[in-house]
């Protein structure tokens, strides 16, 4: 629908855009915790910041004095040490697939808690690519890529796909392809990635993450915030107890790359 509205507006009626002044309130600063546990390198990376004024040009203030701990399903806790500028990193933390991890962040007297299951990896089978004629979604034409994998037989698998182009990680929200298995459960999935058109000679690296449903929903909510036609945008549901913004995601990744030729 976004495309339809966009095309209608762009083609049929020459719309006009201009920068205007909008007077926005200043919200009280809130804690933002972005925590990832990547099985691929057995590393936990946590980044803690605070919210800032909407039009402020400065980078977000960091929180450097939090106490971050990770607890496995058996109840063993370990500290995630502070490194620098809001960053807390724990290396060589070996994942147990199919188990749930709980992270606790103590900051300014408030304890924030979130847990996430480390799912079993869904391996990529390979990258497919095909030439696409020039068109409304492919500009001057080029190569579109697709990722393929076998969706596990049980329902309820969620994936996100990220692309690197010539070594450059595309990390915008609209560069992420999220999938559930509602339509593909148990199938050989060939998922086209409508994110970027490639040229001959480009190196394409695809990372397929097996993510938890909570994270799938969280990213869907984040992406919906980028739609200007959304009638009532709202913060994504809180992932952290005691209402810190951000999320805690534990995931395995399968990575492959190909040169378009």
């Amino acid at each position, binding site marked *: 629908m976004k495309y339809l509205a966009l095309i209608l507006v762009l083609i049929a009626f020459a719309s006009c855009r201009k920068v205007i002044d909008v007077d926005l309130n200043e919200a009280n600063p809130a804690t933002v915790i972005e925590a990832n546990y990547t099985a691929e390198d057995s590393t936990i990376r946590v980044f803690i910041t605070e919210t800032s004024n909407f039009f402020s040009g400065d980078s977000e203030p960091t929180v450097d004095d939090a106490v971050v701990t990770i607890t496995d399903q058996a109840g063993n806790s370990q500290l995630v040490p502070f490194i620098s500028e809001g960053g807390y990193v724990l290396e060589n933390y070996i994942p147990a697939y199919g188990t749930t991890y709980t992270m606790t962040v103590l900051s300014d007297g408030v304890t924030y808690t979130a847990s996430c299951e480390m799912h079993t990896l869904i391996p990529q089978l390979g990258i497919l690519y095909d030439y696409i004629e020039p068109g409304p979604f492919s500009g001057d034409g080029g190569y579109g890529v697709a990722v393929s994998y076998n969706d596990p037989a049980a329902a309820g698998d969620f994936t996100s796909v990220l692309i690197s182009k010539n070594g450059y990680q595309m990390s915008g929200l609209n560069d992420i392809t999220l999938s559930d298995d509602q339509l593909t459960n148990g199938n050989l999935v060939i998922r086209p990635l409508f994110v970027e058109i490639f040229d001959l000679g480009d190196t394409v690296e695809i990372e397929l993450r097996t993510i938890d449903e909570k994270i799938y929903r969280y990213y869907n909510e984040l992406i919906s915030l980028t739609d200007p036609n959304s009638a009532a945008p709202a913060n994504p549901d809180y992932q952290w107890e005691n209402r810190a913004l*951000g999320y805690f995601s534990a995931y395995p990744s399968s990575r492959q790359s190909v040169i378009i030729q």
Partner: protein
Amino acid sequence: MKYLSTLILFLLVSSSFAQEYTISGTMKDSTNGEDLFGGSVIVKGLSNVGATANSYGFYSLTLEQGSYTLMYRSSGFETKEVAIKLTKNMSLDIELSLPNDLQELEGVEVTGVKGNDNITSSGMNVTKFSPKDIETIPVIFGEKDIMKTLQLTPGVKTAGEGNSGFFVRGGGADQNLVLLDEAVVYNASHLLGFFSVFNSDAVKDVALYKSGIPAEYGGRASSVMDVKMKDGNSKNFGVSGGLGLISSRLAIEGPIVKNKGSFILSGRRSYLDLFLKLSKDDNIKNTSLYFYDLNAKANYKISKKDRIFLSGYFGRDNFGFGDVFGFDWGNATGTVRYNRIMSDKLFSNTSVIFSNYDYRFTIGTGDDSFGVNSSIQDWNVKQDFSLFANNNNTIKFGFNGMHHTFKPGALTGGNESFNELILDSRYGVEIGAYVQNEQKIGPRINVMYGLRYSGFDLVGGKSYEFDKNGDATSETDHDRWEKIEYHQGLEPRFSLSYVITENNSIKLGYNRNFQYLHQLSNSTTSSPTDVWVPSSNNIKPQIGDQIAIGYYQNLKKNKFRISTEIYYKALQNQIDYRNGANLLLNNQVEGELVYGDGKAYGLELLLEKKKGKLTGWISYTLSRSLRQFDDINEGNVFSARQDRIHDVAVVLMYKITKNLALAGTFIYYTGDAVTFPSGKYEIGGNVIPLYTERNGYRMPDYHRADLGLTWYLKDKNRFEHNLNFSIYNLYARQNAYTIAFEENAETGETQAIQTALFKMVPSITYNFKIK
């Protein structure tokens, strides 16, 4: 039903025992034989004695034996006086004519004679238009649109720039019952709302009920918009049409058998895509984008007492790009009606009504192509009676049963990666029964009271139960006619008018409405994919209660009319969505919904000038519309999007000469409620807006002026034609359509970017009529 018959009996015998006779018949337009809905007959010299014709033009008046002068009148027509000697029951069909040209030339009457019906009628003010009334009012692309004219009246708010969608008295866009010849129109707009589905060539008139809604209508919480199609000229064949900037129209009408039956066929098609073909850009060139409408109606008088009507509408929008993808949607409706004059006091109408709305997507070609489609379909059987019991009581009663089939969506085709997904069909049976009496109590008081019973039975398909997070906890299969949930309610309707003098009156109205069908939409623009869902074990019916009071004053021999109305509306079981709700292709869509209440209140002022060279109106609305949901905005009350506090519209039509008419409109309203961020943070290097409050900000104020000039070219015999020039947004005001926050690529600063849709849009339309 026992009470009903007792009531009728009581009313029949309570009239005096003097010898009485009835005069009854049909009121028609003399030029084309169309029925005059809303016409009335009064007895000269007797105050508050008369009858109002029903929607098929039928009237019945019972008087003591004697001689009378009857005055037949209807909005826009000359009053006709008929002297009768009533010594037995009589039948008298009446034809009213338009005011003659002589008077018009002298500038005495422009919109025709209309008395003080607005003062004396019992119902709260009904907003009523015919396409003829509004033909000079300028509109975008010159496309005459009755829905857009309604938006210029108090209490009716447009859904957005150029949009035909509307909100009535703070209610939601899905709370308006939109009827076309009794059939529900589920999506009344074309091209994302820029045009309504009502082709003005095919429309006889439209009535909008904002409060004191008559008991014969049910199914939506806020308002009723009743559109009637033309019956077709029963005297002469005629062709009319128009050539516009983006669409053309053609209509053919004529008698089947002179004065016994007539037909009308009317079509419209837009041709925006033909211009796209001229583009050098391949992307634009291969884009198809059009809509069309077909209206057809026929009626035939089988005997003096029996008449049948057939009417149908079919319209579709089509949007596509080469064979890469296609998207089309539209409504189809059909109505078969049988009128019977059972006696000189009792009129019956039986209708069988069909309505369908669907949309389809197809994406790709060959083996990989896949499609999505969704539909809602109704079959409705309806029986209505009007009983002209005596001069003081007009009783309407009836019942209906409607079967709904919801097919929320199916995804088919695609490569072997995809399983087909066919969402569960759902079925509902909606029933209604009503009785209503319009009663005159003495010379000053008119009262209308009625009661409607409505019920909705969700049957068959699957049902789900959800926990408080919206996750399904159970799933149950049901047989095709097995009951899942039955909802029901009593809907009292009441209105009263007290005529102070013949120039002023006070009116009071109350109505309760149940709504069993709900439209889900989480976008600011109306979308063809907005899906309708039935009330169920999870979704309760929406209930609207409204009380309104008004004061009406006519000045200078009814030349000016002033009306003031205030209202308070309470809305229960309103629907909103969880964050990131997935409303498409979701079997468990009910789990995405949250429920709350709403209230709306306001003051509406209207000053109208109905006679003279200069006619028009000024409308002002001061109103609020608020919502409260436990799961939204931390449970705090927030403004509905349409909480537009001040809303002004000025409409002026000036007849310069016999051949030139100038019209202008000016609109000003304060901004809609909108949600803006109050802070930001970063996730994965992306700036994410932080929200603290739902709809806590306001869009900038909106204002715009439009100008239109209609030039009536010289008539030749039976050929009339005119040229209409119009300019939309005369002073090219850039009104905000959306405000988005984007990062400036060069400076890295976040900016607010306002998008305006239309600057100045001039257009020209040629209209003709061969009679």
